[in-house]
């Protein structure tokens, strides 16, 4: 028991000191709570998270038990296996049946039915359900009273319920579709593992592994399960996805640490073996592995609401508030005007239906998924539709360096020979190198680069560009090989012509690599010794240096020049290698000389120094541009990397994360020649923060850094620290996007407002936790995503403004009907035909609208101030354009009635008689008498006319909504073709409804005289002209009263 306890403590240590820090943070937040309890929830989730981390550490130690302390034979006994023979197939099958396959259970998804029901009650659905229930209630009452046409209300209720169900099904379908894209994406090629079973080596799918299996691993493999190693040879594993340590760690068979997570003889599932080979016993499979436990943990961390979800919620509340308050107000008015309660309820339903934009949420979903599709084409795969917009409101991007900002491959960046530094082309698609290659020193250097190199191209890639070919060899050698191939051409044949006779590979004690070759000059029988390695070690072995092809003695002055160059290249964050050679004298080393690399029977000192080459993982060529775009878009880019601060800073400078003119505190100290402590920290715009410093920082100190510096690089950070950084940024009120690839990034990805996983380098856990997957791992793709996100926000505004406008034209008829007791101008069903018929395609068409100006030139929207639906939008749509539409529609309505015999004066106050079924000799203004049905038919004609007028004016509304500030002519009337599809569909649907379905009485449409289509046209034109004037004033007088009140 004691043993176990100590395990727990040590594991806690591993899950770092952060927990303690959080406690401090909690206390501070408690203090803040006294002023406002806004933080309460956040604090709670924080605590919860850490509690789960604690419980995790316990279960982890429990899971691995003490396998790492047992000897191989004890293990064999424990798991009933044999190191040489492995398990028997029968036994393995038994265990497999007991433990299940060795794969991670995918995170528990919400049951489909729950998702579906959520769609049924979300948004406006509740309001519509209320409407439907009221309809049924009034149907019941009317039925009980024996009224003549109670079925109208039954149908209305059914239609409302259908609307909710259909839009719910639609939204559900949309969501399911976007989830499916993700699901298909996350399916991976099944991993294979080399297993010993029945005393035979077999390739098995990794998910068939069971506890007790003996597996063999070699460099490049992914570890297929948690494995206790029993035999290793130079084995190193990359645990970065698990612990965040970026350096590969060596593994051996020895028990080195009490803590199973620290000991060297265990390799963990999903980490990779970088080099060497190993054999081990599987001790945990599937969800019982360490990674399995973390994965199940992160899926428990709740997601926060996306900004667009908050905006839509805000908008739904706003509209529902308007609907309910107007509904209740008019319910009271109608009751006090002595309408029957039943009638008042029916009015209430009408008002709700008129106020609720039934089709809008579906439209928003479609618009978002259209954008998601567009983004997927630009390599941003969005898992959650709402994340589309989140990206647009991002104000801070915390980006990884390797692979995201950089190309993720070493490339030769600089050369130094003849006392001069040359820079090389580091772009992705280099085909030549522009530096001066005429010097004989270069010829010598290139020979060393070519020959002293073990890396080789995989065969069969002759047609590929050099930069894309796959190379067998380590990163530096690959870089040198490609560099040589680009300049010299066929390296392999050069090597063949200069046959290698001896070789000492690189090792960490020598820190050099050496080989001896015959030369391709038939007249020169000397052997050439070439050597490369750590520059200072190489220089130690040299007595001469080559300048312009001539060997000159290496005096202190030349050594000084070497030092300067070495420092300079090192200062750029580049990995520097030195190169030297020596032609072995022919007399001492004849053709047949037996070179022996163990005794080194050849000179390894007094060589001739030729030059330096430095390499770096260069930035992607699109990144600097993307970073500057971020800058102009007001997005702060923070680099978070596990790399060395110097390298990190160099890359940050080259991509513009740290701009050329800004300085860090250390830079200022160096420039002014004063100690770092004396520098005014506010003067430094840039900061490079080391992970070690970050560990000891309080939350306030971190906040201070995030606040005071606009250009920040975090170097040598662990993925855990990433979470702290993200939380720090969120404390500043920022919308934070975070990139990540490792398993351990998952908490940060979840915590971030938008987590971006890498599609190529990313682990499954990261992809699961993320909201978005970057298919090409390229930072620049994020920026194009941001652009799309901002555009969709603007366009959603337009869509909503468009949709809300006609709600007033649908609502006014009810209000006037109640107050002035005129015959009903528009029916509830007709309203639904506008909301879900004619208006749908046009409002989606607005999602295709191009940006009005460069949206990447303005600051990210302020979450609190820049709402999707702001006061101006609502007021302008409701009280201005909406009222104008109502006026236009009422003119048509009165025209239709007047031309049929009911002058406006006759219509006022007729409601009760008009709707009385028993009155069948209702007199019009000309003395004619109408039956009830004849009146109803006229009323439906009125509905149709009102409907047609709204449709016609919605065309104008659609055109004015194309822009919010620019003139329509600036935007171009024909640039967005989809708008025209919208307009034609709108008119087409209206024509079909009026003339095609005009005889289906249940729909309340009647064929309409053609001229009534044009009554509202002047008002449509007026709407357009008015809006042009509005935009003109906004452009002319920015900041004026008009601008403030009229720009939405």
């Amino acid at each position, binding site marked *: 028991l004691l043993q176990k306890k100590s395990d727990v403590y040590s594991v806690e240590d591993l899950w770092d000191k952060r927990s303690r820090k959080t406690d401090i943070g909690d206390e501070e937040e408690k203090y803040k709570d006294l002023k406002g309890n806004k933080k309460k929830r956040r604090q709670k989730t924080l605590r919860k998270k850490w509690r789960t981390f604690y419980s995790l550490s316990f279960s982890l130690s429990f899971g691995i038990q003490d396998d790492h302390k047992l000897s191989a034979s004890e293990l064999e006994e424990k798991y009933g296996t044999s190191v040489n023979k492995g398990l028997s197939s029968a036994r393995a099958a038994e265990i497999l049946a007991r433990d299940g396959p060795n794969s991670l259970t995918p995170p528990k998804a919400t049951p489909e039915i729950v998702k579906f029901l959520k769609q049924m009650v979300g948004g406006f659905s509740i309001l519509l359900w209320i409407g439907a229930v009221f309809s049924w209630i009034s149907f019941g009452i009317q039925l009980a009273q024996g009224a003549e046409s109670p079925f109208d209300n039954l149908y209305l209720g059914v239609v409302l319920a259908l609307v909710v169900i259909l839009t719910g099904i639609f939204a559900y379908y949309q969501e399911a579709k976007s989830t499916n894209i993700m699901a298909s994406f996350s399916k991976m090629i099944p991993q294979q593992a080399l297993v010993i079973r029945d005393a035979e080596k077999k390739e098995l799918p990794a998910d068939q592994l069971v506890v007790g299996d003996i597996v063999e691993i070699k460099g490049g493999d992914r570890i297929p399960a948690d494995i206790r190693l029993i035999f290793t040879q130079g084995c190193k594993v990359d645990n970065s996805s698990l612990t965040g340590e970026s350096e590969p760690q060596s593994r051996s068979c020895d028990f080195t640490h009490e803590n199973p997570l620290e000991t060297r003889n265990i390799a963990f599932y999903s980490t990779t073996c970088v080099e060497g080979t190993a054999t081990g016993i599987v001790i945990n499979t599937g969800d019982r592995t360490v990674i399995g436990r973390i994965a199940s943990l992160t899926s428990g961390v709740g997601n926060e609401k996306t900004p667009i979800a908050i905006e839509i919620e805000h908008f739904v509340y706003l509209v529902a508030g308007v609907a309910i308050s107007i509904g209740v107000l008019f319910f009271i008015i109608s009751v006090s005007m002595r309408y029957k309660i039943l009638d008042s309820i029916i009015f209430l339903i009408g008002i709700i239906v008129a106020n609720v934009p039934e089709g809008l949420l579906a439209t928003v979903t479609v618009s978002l998924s259209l954008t998601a599709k567009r983004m997927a084409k630009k390599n941003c795969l969005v898992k959650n539709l709402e994340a589309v917009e989140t990206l647009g409101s991002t104000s801070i991007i915390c980006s990884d360096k390797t692979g995201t900002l950089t190309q993720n491959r070493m490339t030769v960046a600089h050369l130094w020979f003849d006392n001069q530094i040359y820079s090389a082309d580091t772009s992705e698609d280099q085909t030549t190198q522009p530096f001066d290659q005429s010097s004989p020193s270069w010829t010598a250097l290139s020979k060393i680069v070519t020959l002293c190199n073990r890396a080789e191209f995989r065969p069969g890639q002759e047609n590929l560009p050099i930069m894309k070919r796959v190379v067998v060899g380590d990163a530096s050698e690959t870089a040198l090989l490609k560099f040589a191939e680009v300049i010299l051409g066929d390296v392999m044949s050069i090597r063949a012509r200069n046959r290698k006779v001896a070789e000492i590979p690189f090792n960490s004690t020598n820190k050099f690599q050496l080989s001896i070759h015959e030369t391709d000059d038939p007249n020169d029988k000397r052997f050439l010794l070439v050597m490369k390695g750590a520059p200072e070690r190489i220089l130690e072995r040299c007595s001469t240096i080559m300048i312009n092809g001539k060997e000159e003695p290496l005096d202190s002055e030349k050594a000084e020049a070497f030092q300067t160059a070495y420092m300079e290249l090192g200062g750029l964050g580049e990995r520097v290698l030195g190169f030297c050679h020596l032609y072995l004298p022919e007399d001492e080393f004849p053709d047949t000389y037996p070179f022996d690399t163990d005794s080194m029977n050849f000179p390894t000192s007094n060589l001739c120094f030729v030059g330096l080459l430095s390499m770096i993982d260069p930035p992607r060529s699109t990144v600097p541009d993307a970073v500057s775009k971020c800058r102009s878009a007001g997005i702060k880019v923070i680099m978070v990397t596990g790399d060395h601060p110097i390298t990190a800073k160099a890359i940050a400078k080259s991509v513009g994360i740290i701009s050329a003119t800004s300085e860090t505190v250390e830079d200022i100290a160096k420039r002014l020649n004063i100690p770092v402590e004396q520098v005014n920290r506010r003067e430094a715009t840039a900061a490079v923060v080391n992970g070690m410093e970050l560990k000891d920082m309080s939350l306030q100190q971190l906040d201070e850094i995030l606040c005071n510096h606009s250009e920040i690089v975090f170097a040598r950070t662990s993925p855990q620290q990433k979470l702290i950084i993200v939380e720090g940024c969120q404390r500043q009120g920022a919308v934070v996007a975070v990139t990540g690839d490792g398993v351990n990034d998952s908490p940060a990805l979840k915590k971030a407002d938008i987590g971006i996983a890498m599609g190529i380098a990313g682990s499954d856990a990261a992809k699961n936790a993320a909201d978005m997957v970057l298919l090409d791992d390229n930072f620049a793709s994020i920026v194009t995503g941001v652009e799309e996100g901002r555009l969709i926000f603007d366009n959603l505004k337009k869509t909503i403004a468009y949709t809300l406008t006609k709600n007033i034209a649908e609502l006014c008829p009810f209000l006037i009907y109640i107050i002035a007791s005129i015959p009903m101008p528009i029916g509830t069903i007709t309203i639904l035909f506008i909301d879900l018929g004619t208006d749908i395609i046009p409002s989606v068409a607005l999602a295709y609208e191009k940006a009005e100006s460069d949206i990447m030139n303005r600051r990210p929207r302020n979450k609190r101030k820049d709402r999707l639906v702001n006061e101006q939008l609502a007021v302008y749509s409701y009280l201005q354009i909406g009222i*104008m539409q109502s006026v236009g529609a009422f003119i048509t309505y009165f025209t239709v009635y007047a*031309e*049929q015999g009911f002058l406006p004066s006759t219509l006022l106050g007729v409601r009760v008689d008009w709707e009385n079924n028993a009155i069948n000799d209702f007199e019009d203004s*000309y*003395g004619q008498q109408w039956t009830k049905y004849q009146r109803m038919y006229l009323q439906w004609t009125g509905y149709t006319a009102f409907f047609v007028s709204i449709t016609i004016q919605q065309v104008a509304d659609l055109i004015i909504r194309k822009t919010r500030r620019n003139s329509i002519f600036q935007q171009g009337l024909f640039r967005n073709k989809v708008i025209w599809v919208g307009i034609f569909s709108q008119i087409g649907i209206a024509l079909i409804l009026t003339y095609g379905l005009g005889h289906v009485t249940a729909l309340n449409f009647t064929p309409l005289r053609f001229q009534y289509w044009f009554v509202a046209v002047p008002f449509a034109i007026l709407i357009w002209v008015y809006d042009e004037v509005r935009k003109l004033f906004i452009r002319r007088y920015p900041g004026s009263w008009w601008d403030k009140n009229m720009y939405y």
Partner: protein
Amino acid sequence: MKNYKSLKQVKLPRVGLILLFYLVFYGFLAALFTFTMWVMLQTLSSDIPKYRDRISSPGLMISPKPDTALEFYFNKSDAQSYAEYVSTLRKFLESYDDSKQSQNINCTPGRIFDQNDVAVKKACRFNLSELGQCSGKEDKTFGYSKGTPCVLVKMNRIIGLKPEGEPRIHCTSKEEGMVEINYFPPEGLIDLMYFPYYGKSLHAHYLQPLVAVQLAINSNSTKEEIAIECKILGSPNLKNEDDRDKFLGRIAFKVQMTE
């Protein structure tokens, strides 16, 4: 205090400006609405509505019309129970009184009285005596006290309507033998001379022709609900079989008499 003041100073003009804006805006819209309506009304004739396609065929209606659905309930020995029917009938027939028809002329029966070319349209006289026992002259209770209640059936006025053939009102009862139906004028004929109608302003004194239906309810059928349906027959251009419009050229009502 200072803050409050500055707030007030800033906010008031803002609110004022907005109010002013909406005053102007809505004022303009109201003016526009009024103007457009005025223009629209100018295009209309005051005599004849522009379109009459929604009422191509007239509906039928009865008088008196019970408040609730078209159901008559009365006790022939209780004057109070039918007082309302009687007063309604009386009121309705006031305009048919001879004294009110002094300007009306006697037209040629059986012929459409076309006055298209005449500026001042004349109305044809409808003599109350044509309603016989239902004229209310002999029996002040229109037969309600005797168990022979009268119901007036009239055809809706429609401008320009010229019935063809010999239109007449014919009523049937589903319950055979319970009721005997008499018509005034005889056979329920509607004379063509009352057509066409030229509208309220041109044809101010127009009286629509009436048909009185007297229901002689069998004394053993009291306390039973008798359903009566009246239709207009004999004229090919007057519809009486519309599926949806239950009052187009027909009317159904119920009578229940107690003793």
